[in-house]
């Protein structure tokens, strides 16, 4: 063999051996104990740093406006959901860290008040994607369960931490309106967009109803039970056994089971029907969750369903079929069901490919955005609020 060819072959062989050594070791540089992301008691280091960044956003109007405007260019929903996830996170943080409760409550109130003001001033379409105006809602007057459910859960979460009398009638009115529409709907399916219903929004709204019952002594357990029976019977994908993510008001599926939805759905269901919730998580984990070379991630669809990348899934990274949306929401599922191995591997991926940026104790992920980071903060802090509702403790 000529010397040049011999050198190239030797070099390529060395590169291959080096790759075989390095690639399985790469995750070790990004892996941390799961307690770095989420702890049973108190706040984990990551939760504290993520929270510091969010609290900064709500004390610096210029910074907040810049962040929210960047998201609103793509999706006005993200502006709204970022608020919801942050309020729910702060409620859990208040229960985890009572010493900081006054600060957290103040921020929750600020977010809730501003969200309600914007809803009243700009109308419900302010937080919806433009296509909401393309058709008329089937049920009139028009309401979006997406907005009503999340706002109700924000109000209820705040009151679960500490009563605020001004919020009691706001919660009662919102819950009564949702319950009334459930009772009027022939199939108990309510719209978020015109003739477009979302599993995520139904589960969140039912959580809010359950929490309102806990706070104000109501009893909508029959409604919750009936809705779950409908979901089990009509809204499950027969191949994967997972709940589908969107459907029309008559129950016709619009989209199949989706990772960007199912992880939060399983989490929400955990407050309503623990066995069903765990079953859904386990199916999602089997169908959508994956760990390769120590890095965890999630697909948007199971093998049995073919879908196209959309605003919820985020761009799909080929070869591994990684969905940013599903992988982000998978933190919530793994955190809820104590799947520490998956959670730690997801966190390794986040530190590898999420491009963390730390400034004076504040953390944000550059590959994420405000709503993504708020969902991560929620995954790192969830637990105490659900536990409080389950035990029936009001204050």
């Amino acid at each position: 063999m000529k010397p040049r060819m011999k050198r190239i072959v030797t070099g390529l062989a060395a590169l291959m051996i080096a790759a075989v050594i390095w690639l399985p070791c790469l995750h070790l540089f990004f892996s941390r104990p799961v307690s770095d992301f989420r702890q049973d008691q108190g706040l984990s280091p990551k939760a504290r740093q993520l929270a510091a960044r969010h609290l900064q956003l709500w004390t610096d109007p210029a910074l907040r406006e810049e962040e929210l405007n960047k998201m609103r260019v793509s999706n006005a929903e993200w502006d709204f959901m970022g608020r919801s996830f942050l309020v729910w996170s702060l409620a859990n943080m208040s229960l985890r860290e009572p010493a900081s409760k006054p600060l957290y409550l103040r921020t929750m109130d600020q977010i809730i008040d501003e969200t309600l003001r914007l809803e009243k001033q700009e109308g419900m379409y302010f937080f919806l994607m433009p296509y909401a105006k393309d058709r008329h809602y089937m049920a009139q007057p028009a309401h979006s369960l997406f907005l009503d459910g999340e706002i109700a859960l924000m109000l209820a979460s705040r009151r679960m931490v500490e009563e605020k009398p001004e919020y009691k009638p706001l919660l009662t009115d919102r819950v009564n309106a949702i319950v009334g529409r459930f009772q009027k709907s022939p199939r108990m399916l309510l719209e978020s967009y015109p003739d477009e219903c979302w599993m995520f929004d139904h589960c969140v709204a039912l959580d809010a109803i359950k929490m309102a019952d806990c706070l104000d002594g109501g009893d909508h357990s029959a409604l919750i039970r009936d809705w779950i029976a409908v979901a089990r019977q009509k809204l499950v994908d027969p191949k994967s056994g997972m709940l589908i993510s969107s459907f029309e008001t008559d129950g016709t599926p619009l989209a199949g089971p989706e990772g960007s939805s199912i992880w939060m759905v399983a989490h929400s269901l955990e407050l309503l029907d623990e066995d069903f919730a765990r079953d859904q998580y386990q199916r999602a984990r089997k169908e959508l969750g994956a760990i390769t070379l120590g890095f965890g991630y999630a697909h948007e669809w199971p093998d049995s369903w073919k879908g196209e990348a959309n605003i919820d899934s985020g761009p799909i990274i080929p070869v591994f079929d990684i969905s940013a949306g599903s992988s982000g929401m998978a933190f919530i599922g793994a955190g809820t069901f104590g799947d520490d191995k998956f959670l730690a591997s997801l966190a390794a991926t986040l530190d590898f490919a999420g491009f963390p940026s730390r400034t004076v104790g504040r953390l944000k992920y550059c590959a994420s955005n405000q709503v993504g980071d708020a969902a991560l903060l929620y995954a790192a802090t969830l637990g105490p609020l659900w536990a409080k509702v389950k035990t029936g403790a009001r204050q």
Partner: protein
Amino acid sequence: MKEPFWKKSAIFQRAEFLSARDMLQRAAAISVMFLLAHLAGLREFTSVLNGTIGSLALGWNLSAFLAVIYIVFYLAFVILVPVLILAATLLAVWQRFRRKSPP
């Protein structure tokens, strides 16, 4: 005319393709490029990965372009650079072993 001092240094002299020195030079070049991209603040633009614009002032296309540059150099830095350094080490060890062993 005198050559600049850095051109005389072995590090900057062109190495044979896929030799140990060639690999180290490539690793160094990638590291420098990544460092420059990082210091230029291109990390901020990686929000395009979730469909969020990196900068309202620069617009979608330029934000996406800058994000791609950063991501490519980042992946090269964390995956390719260690592989190149490891491979160079393996080659150096192999060549030393061959020189010592009798023909």
